[in-house]
């Protein structure tokens, strides 16, 4: 699959699971894998802080 930002090739591991984060090796953009009709699609991964409460 190709990076929507730079068209670089993003490799999805064979044992990938839904929600897994993949990164474009060319531009470094991160994407979350989402299941779509038994195959994976990608959506931009949200940037989240590390403050997860008490």
């Amino acid at each position: 699959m190709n990076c929507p930002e730079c068209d670089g090739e993003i490799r999805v591991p064979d044992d990938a699971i839904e929600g897994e984060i993949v990164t474009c090796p060319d531009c470094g953009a991160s994407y979350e894998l989402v299941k779509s009709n038994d195959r994976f699609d990608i959506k931009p991964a949200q940037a989240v802080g590390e403050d997860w409460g008490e």
Partner: protein
Amino acid sequence: MIVIKIGGSIVDGLHESTMQDIKALINNSEKIAIVHGGGKEVTRIAERLGKEQRFIVSPGGIRSRYTDKETVEIYTMVMSGKINKEIVLMLRSNGINAVGLSGIDADIIRAERKKRLVIIDERGRRVAIDGGYTGKISKINASLLFSLLEQGYTPVISPIALSDEYEMLNVDGDRAAAYIAGALNADAVIFITNVDGLIMNDKLVTSLTYDDAKMLLPKIGFGMEKKVLACTEALSMNVKEAIIASGDRKDPISSALRHENCTVISNGRR
């Protein structure tokens, strides 16, 4: 005006003089609001209730509780019930007119619920999961706090926030204290914990500027790092000084205000 954050690690270990120290400051016309923590007690009670706590690890290596629906209910019960009322009881039994509140009362703490969290799974790979019931503080409504303080009450606030969808959220107590101190235009926010302050190279760091603190943040261990971050947030909201001090010494609050054996972070020059 002073905001005091009492860490969960020290609630039971506060020096016996602490309540009288707070009372003396109030008698001297100081206005005081208290925010507390208590994450470890939440874990303990949850396990006694048979709700196993799930801990997740962030890409930065930070281990945190995963707050699902049942956990946020237990969190609220323990924070706003047990811990908050124990502190109110300690204050009232020392003649301090304390009022216990949670962040959802009168919309004191509003937060944005985190939609997704990125964790490291058991295979060591990054995975996005549902954000659960944690939030990032977006707004403090201090009007009730000002009214209570004006009337001589000492508010004691637990770190539970209200989401825009009217859900209860787990928010970090240190950062809640910083935001409340900012909203109250406090002169100081004091983080009372079980150590003297920030220790670097085996030595207590007694004073830091805002810029020093920001620069040191990546080098500080987790736990203390959140306190130093909260200090910088408070300073950026015009709180004059942020202090990290031990609760296990005589008169811990006035001693911290005199800058004795503690870490003081301020906007001024060292």
